[in-house]
């Protein structure tokens, strides 16, 4: 591309302003990448996130991420997730599944991602019952309402499909163990007539322990 030398003062001023804006933008982008890189985020970049306006600017543009999309890993959370709505007293067949089999690929991926967040938050907010059950309760209540089911006891189960591994690639045993599917996240829903909504019981390991949690609507 041939060069072009600006001659007028207005061009020079415009370029100076544009240069400052470009440098600021690229700097913010560098902060986003360096502070969001999983596992090895830069402490300096994390501190720079507190500069006023940086986070708001990045999030406004949807650029506050490190773009670490490996496409596939052996991590358990990387396996495709799905949600099942069950009635404990009924048969083993779920009342409904999300994503539903007939959904197109994009809708399917969105519901798979939502289900993955259920598992993710169950781990991340293990010590915070409110946040831990907020998402599964919201999903279950909306789902029950959509299916026009009567108030009753239901169970929301978030499962993941185990990823089939190539035998011949023979990764280390530890990696194979890491790729084993996690225990399904199970939320038992009980209708509360007084509250007019469902309350949830998160059951981490089916049949072994259950932890009562408060209604997610409680502050």
């Amino acid at each position: 591309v041939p060069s072009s030398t600006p001659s007028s003062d207005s061009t020079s001023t415009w370029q100076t302003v544009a240069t400052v804006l470009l440098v600021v933008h690229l700097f913010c982008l560098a902060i986003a990448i360096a502070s969001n890189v999983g596992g090895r985020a830069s402490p300096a970049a994390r501190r720079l996130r507190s500069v006023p306006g940086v986070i708001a600017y990045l999030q406004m543009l949807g650029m506050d991420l490190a773009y670490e999309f490996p496409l596939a890993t052996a991590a358990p959370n990387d396996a495709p997730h799905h949600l099942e709505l069950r009635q404990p007293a009924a048969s083993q067949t779920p009342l409904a599944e999300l994503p539903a089999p007939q959904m197109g690929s994009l809708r399917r991926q969105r519901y798979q991602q939502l289900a993955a967040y259920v598992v993710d938050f169950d781990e991340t907010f293990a010590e915070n019952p409110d946040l831990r059950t907020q998402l599964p309760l919201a999903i279950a209540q909306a789902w029950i309402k959509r299916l026009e089911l009567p108030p009753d006891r239901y169970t929301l189960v978030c499962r993941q499909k185990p990823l089939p591994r190539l035998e011949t690639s023979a990764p280390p045993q530890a990696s194979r163990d890491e790729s084993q599917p996690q225990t399904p996240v199970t939320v038992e829903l009980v209708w509360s007539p007084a509250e007019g909504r469902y309350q949830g019981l998160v059951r981490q390991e089916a049949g072994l322990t259950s932890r009562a949690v408060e209604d997610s609507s409680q502050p």
Partner: protein
Amino acid sequence: MIAAVEAYIRQLGAATSRGWERFWFVPTSAGSLGIIRILAGASTLWAIVAYQPDLADWLDPEGMLPLELVRDLFPVQWSPLDTLPPTAWAPFHLATILLLALLTIGVGGRVVAALALVGTLSFFHRLPLASGRFEAVAAMLLAYLVLGDASQNCAVGRWYRNRRAPANPTTGMTQEQASNCSALNTISQRLIQLHTALIHLMMGTAQLAAMGGVWYSGEGMWLVASGGNSLLDMTGLEAYPRLVALLSHSVTLYLLTFPLGTWHTLWRPLLLAWGLLVWTMVAVFSGDWLFAVAMIAGSLAQVSSVADRPVE
């Protein structure tokens, strides 16, 4: 000695300044921005249309992603949908679809591009738990397309006006195209180039760091195909692990080569062709064809046609 250092610093400063100006501010036509606009606009249009069956389920206060929950988790983000009443959601959705359609066919210039960006980000920010890698790349492309006037190229209105106008044999541009050369087009294209190269680099390094070493062992593309969304039945690949390994390594190698090699004029066509194969493969294996289209669109910012060259 000091004089020599001073001279060197002056020379370095002048060369850097010239290089910066050449890189960012040489006026160019819209060039490949038109193709990027079509690909990014059409893929985002599809993604926004796909919200339609679940719009109430996602957005309703008693839906799957109530506002209170989303803002608890993402307190800094804000969307116009946060304040709109439920009766306005469908018209807002329709308006965003129309704006993206206009952007895709190249009508309305920067104003439509900016409004389409606002509409699109409104959905992405209101539904972050249903957004993934496509949304991240699409947001980047749409944001940078607002800077340049991408509707100067491959656009319905522009095509209609230019179809009878004679092109300059040297530049390949009509008089109207030549008069529309702008440094903002260059900035838009350069930002897409840099950001896309960065995404390639981060994806490549993420593959190297992926749990289980699946991209080292060559199992990566098998796991991509095992996600259950592939466009074709890939189960037969299990019998060909070496082929899977070849495909997996080619993806990693491409992702790591693109950010550096694409700036070299001789390597660029090779890398663009390689990228087209890689992203097509990723689309077929993963079923995430929108992401693949967005990445192809971003890569096309490296295409420098005759029409990109400035008027002498």
